[in-house]
């Protein structure tokens, strides 16, 4: 195995692969996807660059960002378009 050669191709993959095409190919394998956000909120672009999941509703939201759980108010991390 050539670790560096494969790592280099993974980095190219990260640069070049289109996420929507990836989702389409996974859907062909039977996967079903849903929007990451809940409660009718749109996620600000700032958050999009972080792995984020929302596990609560009711005005205050618990977000898991980079595996760390914290509560945020709507106005801090999320914005309405």
């Amino acid at each position, binding site marked *: 195995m*050539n*670790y560096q050669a494969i*790592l280099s191709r993974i980095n190219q*993959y990260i640069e070049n692969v289109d996420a929507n095409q990836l989702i389409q190919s996974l859907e062909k394998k039977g996967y079903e996807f*849903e*929007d*990451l956000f809940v409660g009718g909120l749109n996620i600000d672009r700032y958050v999009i660059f972080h792995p984020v999941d929302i596990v609560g509703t009711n005005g205050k939201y618990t977000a898991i960002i980079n595996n760390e759980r914290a509560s945020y108010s709507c106005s801090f991390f999320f914005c309405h378009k």
Partner: protein
Amino acid sequence: MKISKIEFTGYHGTNADNEKDITQKSFLKSSSREDWFGKGCYFFTDGISSSSPQDLAEQWAIDVAWDKTIKAYKYDKYVVFHTLIECERDFVLDLTVKEGLSLFNIFREAVLNKIRMVNKKLAKGDYADSDIFDEMKQSLNINVIIGNVFIKFADVRRIPSIRSNLPNVTMFCVNNTNHDYIDTIKHEVIQKGEIQI
């Protein structure tokens, strides 16, 4: 520049009815999502098992002959193929070493991040390793994946006091063509047997 190649020796046990097709053409790739490293053809090879890879291939051929739905053997004659595969080092993923496992984890995280970046997540179920491996083969041109896996052979299933999922065999998966059959340097039958019913 000299191309660095690795040769793999493997053993594949199957229904004797497949002998002619395999001998004349080659091994047909599996397409099951239940397979360890995704689509391809699987071979036992030297590694962590206390049994020889040829014995493992024979045991596999016998085990998969059993149809638990009809509670009978689907076939009673089997063959074991000895096979040589060649692959450039750059296109081998070796999961028997930590660097290989690390590459898999880096790639899986990259796939999941891609999906998160468009605000999507799985509606239900889990991401299967086999699908991540298939994406690696397709996107990174990985042709051979070798790794240690757990197989619950029938003799272990008959011992109720054993519950384990630690790897017990070493296998490699080949997917080195764009068509249904894989390329080998050579493959030949080295053992024929009959299932004792």
